[in-house]
C-alpha cells in the first residue's frame, strides 16, 4: 500500500513549481498583448461593448498582470535555484 519506493522525485518539485508561475504569467501576458495590439490597430465592433474599446483596456490589464506574474515566477525560481542546497538541508 505504501508508495515509499516511488518517492525519489521529491527534489525536482522546487524547480517545477516556479516554472508554473512563469508559464502561466507568460501565457496571460501574451494573450493580453494580442488583445492590446488588436485594440490599437484592429477593427472590432465596439458597439457590442457599450462603445468601450474593451480589447485595449482588458488587454493592457492582462498584459501587465501577466508580466508581473512571470517576473515573480522568474525571480523566485532563480532565488530557489541558488538557495536549493541550503533549503534542502534545513528541511531534513
Amino acid at each position, binding site marked *: 500500500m505504501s508508495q515509499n519506493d516511488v518517492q525519489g522525485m521529491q527534489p525536482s*518539485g522546487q524547480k517545477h513549481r516556479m516554472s508554473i508561475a512563469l508559464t502561466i504569467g507568460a501565457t496571460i501576458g501574451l494573450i493580453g498583448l494580442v488583445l492590446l495590439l488588436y485594440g490599437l490597430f484592429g477593427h472590432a*465592433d465596439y458597439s457590442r461593448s457599450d462603445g468601450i474599446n474593451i480589447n485595449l483596456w482588458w488587454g493592457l490589464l492582462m498584459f501587465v498582470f501577466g508580466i508581473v506574474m512571470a517576473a515573480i515566477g522568474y525571480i523566485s525560481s532563480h532565488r530557489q535555484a541558488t538557495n536549493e542546497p541550503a533549503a534542502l538541508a534545513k528541511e531534513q
Partner: protein
Amino acid sequence: MFTLASLQANISPDIGWVDYLIIAIYFAVTLGIGLALRKRMLSSEDFFLSGRSLPSWVTGLAFVGANLGALEILGMGANAAQYGILQAHFYWIGAIPAMIFVAIFMMPFYYGSKTHSVPGFLKLRYNEATRGFNAITFGILTVLTSGINMYAAALVFNVLLGWSLNACIWLAALFIMVYILLGGLSSSIYNETLQFFLIVAGLLPLTIIGLINVGGWSGLQAKVNNPAFFHLWAGTAGSNNPFGVNFIGIILGLGFVLSFGYWCTDFLVVQRALAAEDQAAAQRTPLIATFPKLFFPFLAIAPGLVILSVMPGLGHGGGFNNSYNMAIPFAMVHYFPSGLLGLGLTALLASFMSGMAGNVTAFNTVWTYDIYRSYIKRDAPDRHYLWMGRVITVAGILISVGTAYLAASFNSIMDYVQVLFSIVNAPLLATFLLGMFWRRTTPWGGFFGLLIGTICSIALWVMEQFLHIFSFGTSEGSSMWRAFIAFAVCFVATFVISLFTKPRPETELKGLVYSLTPKAEVVETAWYKRPIVLAAAAIVIFVVLNIIFF
C-alpha cells in the same frame, strides 16, 4: 440553429482571425506544458500524483479549477438566470463549510495515511471489499461525468460557431488524450491552474460590460424586476422562493449532504490536495480554494441576470440551444467584440478541457491502483503500472466519447449529474464520517452500510423516475432529498451492523481515526499560512457576504 434565440437579440458572433489566434495560443501552451513535463514522468507516482511535489497555491487553484468544469460554468450562469442570487448558495453555504471541514479535519488522514486515492483510504480504514465497491462506482461516475462535459462542450461550440458536433467531440478527445499521456496528473493540474486564470480573465469583463450596459447593480435590479432574485435568505422561511426549498432544506440538503459529500469524498478534488508537497500544503489546498470560490458568484450571477434582460425568451422552450445553459455563452457572443470573444471562448474551452481531464486523471488512478493492481496484476514493476496508466487513459477517453453520445439522449444534463451524485457520493459521506470519527465502526459495517445506502438511492431514483410511485417535487429538490435519505440510511445501517460485527484492532487504526491519531506537529513559520488563520478569514468573508445579500 439560431432561429429561436436570434429573434430576440444579436447573438451572431463577431469572430475573426484574432479570436482563432487566441484559441491557438491556448492549445499551443497546453501541448507545450505536456511536452515539457514528459521528461519528468519517470515513475508511477509522478504520473498519478505529480510526485507529491506541488506547492499549495497551485494545488489550491487546481482544486477549485477541477470543480469548474463545463457543467459548472454553464450551470452557474443557467442557475443565475433561473434562481437569481439564490444561486450563490451553491458557492457559499454549499461549499465553504465543507471545504474548511475537509481541510482541517480530513486532510491530515488523507495525506498522512500516504494513500494514493479515496478508495485506497477505504481499504486502510475498512477492507478490500469496501475499496473495490467504491473504486467501481467512482470509476463509473468519472467516465459518465467526463462524457457529459465533452457533450456540453461540443454543444456550445456547435451552437455558437456552427462546428459539427462529432468533430468537436473527437477533437476534444484527441487533444486531452495527448496532453494527459504526456504529462499525467501534472498536465491536468497545470491546466486547471491556467484555466482558473483564463476563466477569471474571460468572465470578469462580461460582468463589467454587462453591468455598465444595464446601468449598474441598481439598474440590473430594475431591469430584472423580481426582488426575490436579489435575496439569499429573506424569502426562505417557506418554500415560496425561486428555489422552492426552505432554509432548512438549503442548510441540510445543500449545505450538509450534497456539499460535504462532494468536497470531502470525491477523489477528483481530493486528488489535487494529495499532489501537494507536504501535509501542511495539502491542508492549505482546500483553504486557498475557498477564496476564489467565495468570489465566483460575482462572475456568474451578473452575466446570467443581464442576459435575461436582453433575451427574455431564454429558457422557455427550444431545447438546449435556447436553454438557461446557454446564458453565459450567449452573453459572451452578445457583448464581446472580436478579440475579447476569442478570450471568452478560450476560457470556455479551457473549462471543458479541464473538467474532462480532471475526470480522466482521477479515473486512470483509481483503475490502475484500486482495480488493476488489486485484482488483476498484483506485483508488476512500477514501469508496468505507468504503462497501464497510459493505456487506461486512452481507454477512459474512448469510453467518455461513448458516454458523451449517451448524455446526448438525456433532456437535462444537469439533473443527470445530480442523480449520479446522490447515488455515489451521498452514502459515501456517512461511511467516511463514521470511519474517521467513530473507532468502533467495523469493516463489514462500512461495506454493507455503503452497499445498502447506494442501493437505496438507486431504488428511490427508479421508483420516482420510472415507476412514478411518489414525487419529491422539482428535480433539484428531488436530488437533495434522495441524497439526504441515502446518507441517513447508510449512516444507520453502518452503525447498526458495526454493533454486531468485529471492529479492527485499534493499533491498525492509528492515523485513520480522529481519536486515535496524535495531533500533527506541523509548525508553520509564517502566520498567514496557518490553517486556522486561513479558515477564519474565509469564514469572516462568508458571513459578511451572507449578511450583505441577506
